[in-house]
């Protein structure tokens, strides 16, 4: 099969996972990659479980089916574990990044991955976003955490992309808060 990086985002509607997939896609594109970013297609309702996806590749992407075997899984809301099939289809060497105050070890067992090869990372993205952006926006610190855990996107690329693409949309204060959130996510994420 073709060489793709596939990412699945889990969250609840209004937590920003669709935007996170968009921002990640844009940042990867800026670093010279071919990308896809799409939400789980459907009529959305506030608070309902939502998925969003990325494909990233060095080659033009021709696949237009759903992402069903992602190596990277980001969970913005830990209450979705056990509800939203967060481990479905993931390969042995999968990487999970979870917004929680709990340790990677605890989350590994909650995910049913004890003794498995998959890596589990955690960060308190809700707390970071409250302290930096001033509201619950866990997606932004999680992007920083992804840069640390995955290595296919540099934190600098995420930050530069955000500063350039969103300067018109947000005030400098909001941009600064988001950049700080990404940096803190990068620094504070822990994994095993």
């Amino acid at each position: 099969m073709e060489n793709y990086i596939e990412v699945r985002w889990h969250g609840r509607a209004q937590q920003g996972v669709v935007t996170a997939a968009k921002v990640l896609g844009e940042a990867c594109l800026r670093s010279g990659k071919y990308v896809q970013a799409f939400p789980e297609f459907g009529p959305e309702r506030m608070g309902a479980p939502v998925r969003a996806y990325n494909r990233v590749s060095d080659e033009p992407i021709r696949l237009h089916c759903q992402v069903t075997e992602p190596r990277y899984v980001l969970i913005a809301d830990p209450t979705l574990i056990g509800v939203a099939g967060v481990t479905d289809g993931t390969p042995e060497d999968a990487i999970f990044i979870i917004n929680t105050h709990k340790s990677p070890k605890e989350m590994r067992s909650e995910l049913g991955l004890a003794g498995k090869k998959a890596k589990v990372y955690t960060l308190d993205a809700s707390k970071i976003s409250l302290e930096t952006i001033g509201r619950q926006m866990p997606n932004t610190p999680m992007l920083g955490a992804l840069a640390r855990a995955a290595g296919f996107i540099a934190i600098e690329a995420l930050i530069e992309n955000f500063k350039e693409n969103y300067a018109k949309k947000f005030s400098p204060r909001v941009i600064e808060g988001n950049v700080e959130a990404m940096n803190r996510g990068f620094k504070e994420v822990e994994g095993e």
Partner: protein
Amino acid sequence: MAIMTKGQTGLTGNTAIAYAMKQINPDVCAAYPITPSTAIIEDFSSYVADGAVDTELITVESEHSAMSACIGAAAAGARVMTATSAQGLALMWEMLYIASGMRFPIVIANVNRALSAPINIHCDHSDSMGARDSGWIQLYSETVQEAYDNFIQAVRIAENEKVLLPVMVCFDGFITSHAIENISLLDDSEVRRFIGEYRPKHYLLDTDNPITYGAMTLQDTYIEFKHQQSQAMTRAKDVAIEVGREFGKEFGRTYGLMETYRLDDAEVAIVILNSAAGTTKVAVDELRKQGKKVGILRPRLFRPFPFREIADALKNVKAVAILDRADSMNGFGGPLFNEVRSALYELDARPRVISRIYGLGGRDYKVKDALEVFADLKKIAETGKVETLQKYITL
């Protein structure tokens, strides 16, 4: 290292079409929103509100009125466009025939979506396939890039004096309309130069040369009107080729009547429209690695149907599967199957042809689904026998 994606940006299909509309700056856009095409008009209405375009945006109370207003504006001499999907296109039905019969070069983005019932908002081609005999030119698009490029070319094809017919640009709901993909955008000035100014020869507001549109024609002249319309549709094929070639010369992306992929020496082939062709290409590459001679034909122009060119492209394959994302509900395969199979009848040595209906209502079509079809085709090519002429897949 050179950055291959330099100059590209990431847009959804809907955002890209709205951007193309901004660049085209039509005189009139009359629209009524419907999922999954809503964002086109939503984005475009921002361009209108911001003064980025001079377009008269008419918000109406239904798609029937949207197409009616488009027709009225086109009759007055305006360059007109709109967007819709599924039930929206269905509600435009009688007006579609009036737009084409009056020979108005209206351009519509149809974001392909299944028709109710049961209600569904996801992709299939039932909507545009139902309109295939309405006298509209139809272009189908695999990617966000192609949807954007097709939409710009549609203006030129529609307004060509030899054609003067409305054009429907089709692309897959959600799969293309809501997915961000890499895209190279043209400059506003490039788009405006390519499409040129619209100067209709005849229009109602030209009071020095009064004319009538929509007059009663009975047994004496109606058939002559339809004959002329049919001839115009035939001419649209050459115009589409010319425009696609000129687009390539100007901007580096050439388009033809169809795209073939690894078809030259193929023994078996899949014929398929829109985004699923991309997924099928991945399957083709897998099988080619194993030395299997497989290929794809993806029609881009479905109306007028390039039957000679399609037959010619498939004349050397032993077996071909036509994949339809719509069922004609005629008991004998989907619309693409019927037309391709009919086109092949003129060949001296015809390939065996099977019908497969897939992906209705947005059902996922994966590489493995394409591989299974190719496995069926291999058996047919080896034995010369068709076991299952038609069936639903991805069930």
